């Protein structure tokens, strides 16, 4: 089977299962909603202030919510030894990884699309800079979180105390990506600085870590 068809089959299977159960998206949504409400109580910002801090709030909320979905990525495949079956099958391992990463990417993007209106309402957000740049930052930033997150979820699923392990190894590596997302978002919202460097930086981060993930995934999948 080719990489493309395997990726498509696995991705469609995951999307169908998610569409029927809505496990990941519901828990992520509710979690992100809680974070938004709690931050709103904790900071109680004015419109001017919230433009400055929103970049940080939004991305911290999405990061925490994404971990909820990422943790469930491989759990389903452990039941009935699906992962072992995959290992002995001739299907390319990177196809599985890409499907999982794309699936998580779609979940988190849907989450962001649903949560953004809430942020706008609760924090009275109005962007000074062009909004389409925010979309670019969101897509690049989400891929940065999700590609490493999917990989590290495959690492942490093999450890004791799985759920705790993922954020512990994901957050340190993601610090530059998070910094880039937050600063790009803040510069667009306030319109005070150009986000160009940060967008390029996110693109570099995405390319580098996608390459590293694809290089190492087979090794990790077959680790005994």
């Amino acid at each position, binding site marked *: 089977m080719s990489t493309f068809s395997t990726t498509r089959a696995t991705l469609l299977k995951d999307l169908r299962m998610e569409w029927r159960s809505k496990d990941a998206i519901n828990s992520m949504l509710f979690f992100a909603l809680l974070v938004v409400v709690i931050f709103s109580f904790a900071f109680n910002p004015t419109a001017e202030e919230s433009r400055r801090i929103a970049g940080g709030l939004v991305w911290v909320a999405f990061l925490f919510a994404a971990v909820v979905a990422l943790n469930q990525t491989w759990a389903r495949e452990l039941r009935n030894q699906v992962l072992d079956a995959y290992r002995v099958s001739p299907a390319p391992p990177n196809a599985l990884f890409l499907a999982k990463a794309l699936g998580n990417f779609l979940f988190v993007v849907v989450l962001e699309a649903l949560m953004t209106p809430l942020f706008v309402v609760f924090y009275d957000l109005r962007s000074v800079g062009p909004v389409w740049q925010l979309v670019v930052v969101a897509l690049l930033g989400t891929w940065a979180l999700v590609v*490493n997150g999917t*990989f*590290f979820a495959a*690492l*942490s699923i*093999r*450890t*004791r*105390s799985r759920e705790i*392990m993922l954020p*512990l*190894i994901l*957050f*340190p*590596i993601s*610090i*530059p990506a998070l*910094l*880039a997302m937050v*600063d790009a978002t803040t510069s667009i919202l306030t319109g005070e*600085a150009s986000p160009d*460097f940060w967008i390029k*930086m996110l693109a*570099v*981060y995405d390319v*580098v*870590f996608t390459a*590293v993930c694809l290089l*190492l995934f087979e*090794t*990790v999948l077959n*680790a*005994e």
Partner: protein
Amino acid sequence: MKNIFMAFVVLTVCLLAYSTYQGLFVAPTEQTMGEVQRIFYYHVPSAWTAGVCFFVNFLASLLYLWKRNPASDALAAASAEVGVMFCTIVLITGPIWARPVWGIWWTWDARLTTTLVLWLIYVSYLVLRRFAAGGQTQVLAAALAIFGFVDVPIVYMSIRWFRTQHPSPVMGGGENSGLDPAMLHAFFWNLLSFTCVGIVLMVIRYRLQKAEEQVEAAHAAVALQGGSR
């Protein structure tokens, strides 16, 4: 082999004594900063040694993924632990110096932040090693080590840009611009002795790791034979 190592340990102890004497007594006192500048002789060599350890960790992890030999995994584990220790020394001695000289304990400057993130990454590496189950530990740890090493230049680049947009603290004109020859002398002796201490600790930790693995293998063999003595 054992004798050579013992001789190296003795040499390291002598070097450390000499370089400490050089740093604390022989090197001249800095004019504006005063005695606190002497922490420089410990701070920078520790940072250098931590860097060497993390580089060894990266090479050993690559070698492990390639050859799958337990020796390079043991070396990776040993170098990460020793590196985290030296990195901790850097992060502690830095603020002690910065408080009287800069007037602040900490600032989100490029080098400081990169060191902190480096520390976080390798602590998470050690946590993963501790929590991973059974025979998978080595591969998982090696994979994470490569991620961590690739991340460091990106972190440095991003923080540098982050900070160049803001006024940076009094950083220029520091020790690097025109170090007194006597200070340079003390500095290089300390650099050498700290590197040797790092090597000694890595070798000891490496042997410990190998011994631990042998004990585990022996336990597993006993368990396999069904003997619960």
